């Protein structure tokens, strides 16, 4: 360890430190994903399925539905009172119309492929999952995804 006997203080070389800090910043900037809270709600524990496929983004638009263990919709939909299948169907139908209207304004050709992504907690009852899917069906959605964990955490 070098010291300065004359008492002038030691000069610390900050170049490597700054370099490493900027490297780390670049790494996190590249890997950051500013997703909405309803896409990855940590409060929901997804079930495990070994037959799941990796996430893809082939659809034009996604609508995320997060279902907690009690069968309630959480995330961004928690602000709405969607306690009946009819209300959920109406809300989803409006969402779909908004998406299609936006797509037609942008001049996108063909029908817009909208996928409903259902993130249901592993302890929610099957009847609640079915209710949500039924509402999606009645809102004229065709494509849906069930989110699962590919391996246990």
């Amino acid at each position, binding site marked *: 360890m070098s010291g300065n006997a*004359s008492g*002038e203080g030691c*000069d610390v*070389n*900050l*170049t490597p*430190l*700054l370099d490493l*800090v*900027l490297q*780390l*910043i670049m790494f*996190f*900037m590249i*890997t*950051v*994903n*500013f997703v909405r809270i309803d896409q*990855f709600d940590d409060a929901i524990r*997804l*079930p*495990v*399925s*070994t*037959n*799941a*496929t*990796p*996430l*893809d983004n082939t659809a034009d638009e996604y609508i995320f539905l997060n279902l907690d263990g009690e069968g309630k919709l959480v995330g961004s939909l928690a602000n709405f009172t969607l306690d009946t299948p009819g209300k959920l169907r109406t809300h989803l139908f409006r969402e779909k119309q908004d998406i299609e209207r936006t797509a037609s304004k942008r001049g996108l050709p063909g*029908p817009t*492929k909208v996928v409903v*992504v259902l993130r*249901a*907690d*592993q*302890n*929610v*009852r*099957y*009847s609640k*999952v*079915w209710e949500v*899917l*039924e509402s*999606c*069906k*009645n809102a*004229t959605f*065709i*494509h*849906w*995804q*069930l*989110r*699962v*964990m*590919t*391996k246990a*955490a």
Partner: protein
Amino acid sequence: MNRPNRHDNREAAGVNLGAIITPMLDMSFQILAFFIMTYHPSGFEGHVNGNLTPPTPRIDDGKTQVDAKLLEEVGPEMDEAVQVVVKTIPRGAIERGRSDGQPSQIYVKKTEDAVLALVGDTDEPLAESLRKLTVRLRSMQQAGPGRGIVRLECRADLKHRYVMEIYDVCKGAGFQNVSFVAPGRSKN
């Protein structure tokens, strides 16, 4: 009088631009802390694709339109489907070590069968019931071509995690299409 050799000190300390980099370093740490806190690894999440059958036709009010092309992607015919029925432990009950929300009896039925065949029950561990179901489904899958469809009928109180476990069993037995059916109306 010897003066300190500023040139030597400059070389020993590295490049000296004469700029104050303390605020820059401080800002860098701030940004780094922000990105560390917002970092969210999600590598383990996957998805299961599905299609919904169109709703019951209603009076055309001129507002609701379903694209005909999208309807072509609706699921296959169910005539040759193998039926898997899963009953569950009622809410609040415990039956031979299995708690509420877990499967109780598991039945399988082929198209030509008149009644459901019991595959798994509560007198054995759940893993054993699932293993028996796997064996039975594999034998059905190998029995004849075209039997690639399973209709999964689960009772309303069955927990979602067990629905996915049985879904895994059906897919693992070689069935390409697993169709979810409305929950049964019986209590369990």
